[in-house]
């Protein structure tokens, strides 16, 4: 590839590098702001001018995971704080009365995310294999139909789904949300996995079939191991989508099955949003996705374009 004419000069590389690094630094500022605000006290968080250097505090995280009430001086004097986190809330004459809802909401995100990811990758792998290897009647139409389900605005589908879930008793349940997210993710799973399976040479299975394997065995013992990387990255994309989804969660869940995205903006402190707690909640919620993004970086393009662009 590299040769004297098409290779950029060192000076061009320097200029390009400085511009891109500059953009990158600006673009991650809001993310850094989320990470740091989580470790500020509420007073530091709303200070003017905004504080870049501050004394780190775990108040945001304590507030995120607990519910607190204000108590009288007599009560506080009679009950000295037992732990470091009780110590922190004492500053405001408060005591911890129990855990907050954040843990449950986070757990809901985990259950619904993993449940729907498993289902959509399982069903998607089967369908993708069939589309890749067999002459399915109306194949192109079916594939396009699967993709077109992604064009619907979620709010438009939410109306009948709301009614349907209400009559089936699926409103605000894990099962309902898992099925819904599976249906949304399956188009991505089928399209991505078809691309990955297309890349596995047919000769492998044909050899296995000649050796006496049945189709199922050939699929299970030959194709699946070959497609493992593709399946793993598809799974991460499905997981990230289900993890980030907001519209359906906000409209169809309110309590038992509510996930973290509709919950985090409702974290309220004294006099408005408790920004350090919101930032702490966002950090706990966003960092896993950042880690997955870094793991996935080689397949990122494929995932976000439904397999249309491959590097």
């Amino acid at each position: 590839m590299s040769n004297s004419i098409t290779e950029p000069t060192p000076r061009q590389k320097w200029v390009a590098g400085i511009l891109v690094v500059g953009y990158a630094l600006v673009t991650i500022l809001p993310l850094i702001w989320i990470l740091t605000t989580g470790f500020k006290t509420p007073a530091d968080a709303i200070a003017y001018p905004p504080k870049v250097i501050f004394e780190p505090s775990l108040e945001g995280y304590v507030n995120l995971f607990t519910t607190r009430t204000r108590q009288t001086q007599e009560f506080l004097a009679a009950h000295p704080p037992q732990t470091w986190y009780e110590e922190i809330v004492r500053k405001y004459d408060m005591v911890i009365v129990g855990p907050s809802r954040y843990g449950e909401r986070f757990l809901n995100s985990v259950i619904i995310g993993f449940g729907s990811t498993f289902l959509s990758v399982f069903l998607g792998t089967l369908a993708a294999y069939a589309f890749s290897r067999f002459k399915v009647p109306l194949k192109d139409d079916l594939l396009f139909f699967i993709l077109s389900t992604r064009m619907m605005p979620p709010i438009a589908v939410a109306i009948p789904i709301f009614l349907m879930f209400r009559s089936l008793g699926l409103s605000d349940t894990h099962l309902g949300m898992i099925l819904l997210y599976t249906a949304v993710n399956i188009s991505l799973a089928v399209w991505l996995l078809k691309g990955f399976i297309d890349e596995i040479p047919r000769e492998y299975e044909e050899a296995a079939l000649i050796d006496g394997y049945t189709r199922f065995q050939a699929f299970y013992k030959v194709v699946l191991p070959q497609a493992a990387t593709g399946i793993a990255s598809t799974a991460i994309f499905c997981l990230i989508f289900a993890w980030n989804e907001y519209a359906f969660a906000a409209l169809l869940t309110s309590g038992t099955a509510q996930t973290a995205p509709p919950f985090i903006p409702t974290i309220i402190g004294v006099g408005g949003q408790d920004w350090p707690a919101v930032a702490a909640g966002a950090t706990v919620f966003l960092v896993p996705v950042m880690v997955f993004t870094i793991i996935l970086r080689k397949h990122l393009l494929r995932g976000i374009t439904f397999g249309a662009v491959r590097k």
Partner: protein
Amino acid sequence: MFDSPMQRAARATPPEIARRIRGLSDRTVAWIFVSPTILLLLAVNIFPLIWTINLSFTNFRANRPNRAIEYVGFENYQRILTDGDIWLTMQATAHFLFWTILLQVLIGFTLAWLINRKFKGNDLWTTIIVLPMMLSPAVVGNFWTFLYQPQIGFFNYIVSFFTGVDPASFQMIGDVPLAPWAIVIVDTWMWTPFVMLICLAGLRSIPGYIYEAAEIDRASRWRQFWTITLPMVLPFLMLAVLFRGIENFKMFDLVVQLTGGGPGSTTELTSINLKREAFEKWRTGYASAYAVILFVTIFGLASIYVKALNKVKER
């Protein structure tokens, strides 16, 4: 040698067919593999779609499920298409679509072009730039309301630092002229990397020998850009625009958390407007007609666009 008829038949059977007899036929396997997906989509996508179409001809209200449903014909459609507020919503959506796509294409392409200079560490910085796009739009959108706070907000502080404007003098979210730009800024921040990644793939797909040939022909750098780089990246760029167009036409989570459609209804994009009709005013029949119109619009525009895209690809 005398073979039994069975053995003779077995030898005459092509191996292809013999294999099929041993296990299930490929056709059966194909159906077993495809049908769960299709059934799920029929149940969760197509059935609701048909239900929506049906509801769109009624005056049904989901908060009064026991009231008798009356069929009203095309009344809902008529009311939507003649409603002035809906056209305001469409204008807000068009403003949002136009500026986000324009900015993301310009910045995204430029970044990709720069990253393609292959400076040291470009992979690391690409990954950092990509981060915002993978995060939950609702959670990030909510946090941006904090950055946009007058006086204490970090965004206002930065603007005031560079321009000297009083940071308490403007509210990105609260001021009518600024709010449409507040959502454009956050969407551009979030999704420019998407366009960038696709453009980068396009740039990397151009073989170096084309540029060598152009050099031999003494084509200027400028001319090379317009006659080689841009035309060859164009199909990729158009694909990126298609994805961003569909996504931003549906835009809900980010904007609802940022501005909630306000102030007034300056940033009330179609999805937010639809949510108000369906889940706040509970005009289910009316909202269903609205949903059908939106879907037909997206689907129609996307189909026309894909045809154009294919023409560009064929060139």
